[in-house]
């Protein structure tokens, strides 16, 4: 049930497959729900050329772990995984991956959504967008 911070680009599909092969028992899970957040090249009508994601080392990992623990307690899940990028990110780079494995689809869908929404509102990450004529901090999340 890891919650990882990555400083370099990652492949969410490869990560999911690797984690599944290493930690999940074949035949035990009937549902895998995943969400991948990818960087756009536009925001508020402006072209965004890059983005820097800052975090609070220690607290961020701790909150991602707490959110996974809560999901595991709230639903009957087999396992879950969160990977989140920090540092300089470019359009089309994956930013975040959440995956949930369970016996049935209802729990997997609901818990996957929970991981993302809780992460966005509680885990300490901050985005600074690079525009053609400077930088700006992002103050609000998009509605889910």
């Amino acid at each position, binding site marked *: 049930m890891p919650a990882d911070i990555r400083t370099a680009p990652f492949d969410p599909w490869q990560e999911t497959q690797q984690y599944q092969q290493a930690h999940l028992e074949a035949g035990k899970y009937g549902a895998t729900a995943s969400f*991948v957040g990818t960087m756009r090249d536009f925001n508020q009508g402006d072209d965004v050329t890059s983005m820097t994601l800052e975090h*609070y080392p220690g607290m961020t990992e701790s909150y991602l772990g707490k959110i996974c623990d809560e999901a595991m307690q709230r639903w009957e899940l087999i396992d879950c995984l969160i990977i989140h990028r920090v540092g300089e990110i470019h359009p089309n780079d994956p*930013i975040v991956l959440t995956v949930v494995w369970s016996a049935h689809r209802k729990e997997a869908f609901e818990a996957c959504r929970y991981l993302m929404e809780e*992460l966005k509102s509680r885990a300490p990450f*901050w985005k600074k967008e690079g525009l053609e004529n400077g930088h700006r901090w*992002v*103050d*609000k*999340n998009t509605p889910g």
Partner: protein
Amino acid sequence: MSITVKFFARLREQIGQGDVTLSSADTVQSAWEQASNGMAMPDNTLCAVNMEYVDKNATVVDGDEVAFFPPVTGGSYAR
């Protein structure tokens, strides 16, 4: 012993420093006042003591790490 104060993101840039060490502070609010170079705390500031969210009136004791940061914006979308 001492109190460590950390500022993140926009607050770090506005205050001009990320880490400040104080000899003492009674509350989170007083840690802000001593470390923020006279800047008023923005209304939407989030506070943490030892990496747990707290209210700005929370008590601080020797050895604590107090952090201040703007609303968080993780996840997938820029806005």
